[in-house]
C-alpha cells in the first residue's frame, strides 16, 4: 500500500543558506507521520514560522511544505550562530486514498500539524448481503 512517503528532497544543510552556485538551500523539517484508519497525521517542525510564512501546495499528488521564517532576527551582532536563516522545504508523495479537498493544517509554536483524511470511498466498510 502506498503511503505519504517522502520523495527525494534537498539534503539537510543547516549551515549554508546558499551554495556555491547561488542556488537556494533549504532546511528539511523533521516530521512525524501517523496513519489512522481515517487518515494520516503529519507533524513538521518549523521553528520561527507562523501561518503567514507557510505555503502548502498540492500538485499531482505531491504535497510541498514551504516555510519562511518570520522577523525574529535581533538587530544585533551575532556572536554565535547555530540556527539557519534558510527556508524550510520538504516534499511528500501522497497516498492516492487521501481526500485532498479535506486536508486541514494548523501551526502552533513552530509545529505544523496536517490532517489528511482518506476519502470515504477507501475506508473499510462492511458489505451486507441482501436476502
Amino acid at each position: 500500500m502506498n503511503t505519504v512517503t517522502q520523495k527525494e528532497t534537498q539534503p539537510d544543510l543547516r549551515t549554508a543558506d546558499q551554495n556555491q552556485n547561488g542556488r537556494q538551500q533549504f532546511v528539511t523539517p523533521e516530521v512525524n507521520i501517523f496513519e489512522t484508519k481515517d487518515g494520516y497525521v503529519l507533524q513538521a517542525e518549523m521553528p520561527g514560522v507562523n501561518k503567514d510564512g507557510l505555503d502548502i501546495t498540492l500538485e499531482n499528488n505531491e504535497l510541498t511544505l514551504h516555510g519562511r521564517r518570520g522577523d525574529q532576527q535581533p538587530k544585533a551582532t551575532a556572536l554565535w550562530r547555530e540556527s539557519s536563516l534558510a527556508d524550510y522545504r520538504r516534499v511528500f508523495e501522497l497516498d492516492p486514498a487521501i481526500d485532498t479537498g479535506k486536508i486541514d493544517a494548523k501551526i502552533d509554536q513552530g509545529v505544523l500539524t496536517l490532517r489528511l483524511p482518506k476519502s470515504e470511498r477507501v475506508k473499510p466498510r462492511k458489505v451486507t448481503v441482501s436476502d
Partner: protein
Amino acid sequence: MSNLTRWQRSDLSAWPGFGRLFGLRNELDRLFEPFAELTRGSQLLSVWNPAVDVFEDKDSIIVKAELPGMKKEDIDVSLHDGALSVSGERKSEEKFEDAETYRSERFVGRFHRTVTLPSPVSADKVKAQYKDGILMITLPKTEEAKPKQIEVNVA
C-alpha cells in the same frame, strides 16, 4: 493494495535453499535483538540539542533558542555565575488511536543548553519570550559592562 488478479500458488517455498536462508536469518535476528531494542527509533542514544544563537548590542545580550512545540511552562531559564541555562522537556505527543507510525523524527524528552555570557548582566532585568517555537531571552548588561563614551578635554 492488490488488484483482483488470479491467485497463484507460490512455488518458491519448494526450493530447498530458502528454508535454510530464513533459518539463518532468524538466527541472526535473535542474536542482534538486544541491540535492535536499544537503537530502535535511535532516540534513546541521541539527545535533543536545540540550536542556540547569541547576539550582542550595546545594551544587552540576546540568546535565541529553537524550541518548537513546547509548552511555556515546560521551559526553564536560569542564570548562574555568568552562565545562562535553558532546559526543559518535551512530552510525547498525543497518541492517535490505532495509529501506525511511519516516521518519527521529532525529539521527545529532555534538553539542556548552557551559554557562557560574554559580559555581566543585570539578573533582575532578564526577559524571556516564547513565540512561534522560538525562545528569545534578552539580558540587559550591567551599567559597568556597557561601553562608555569618555570625553577628554584637550587643553
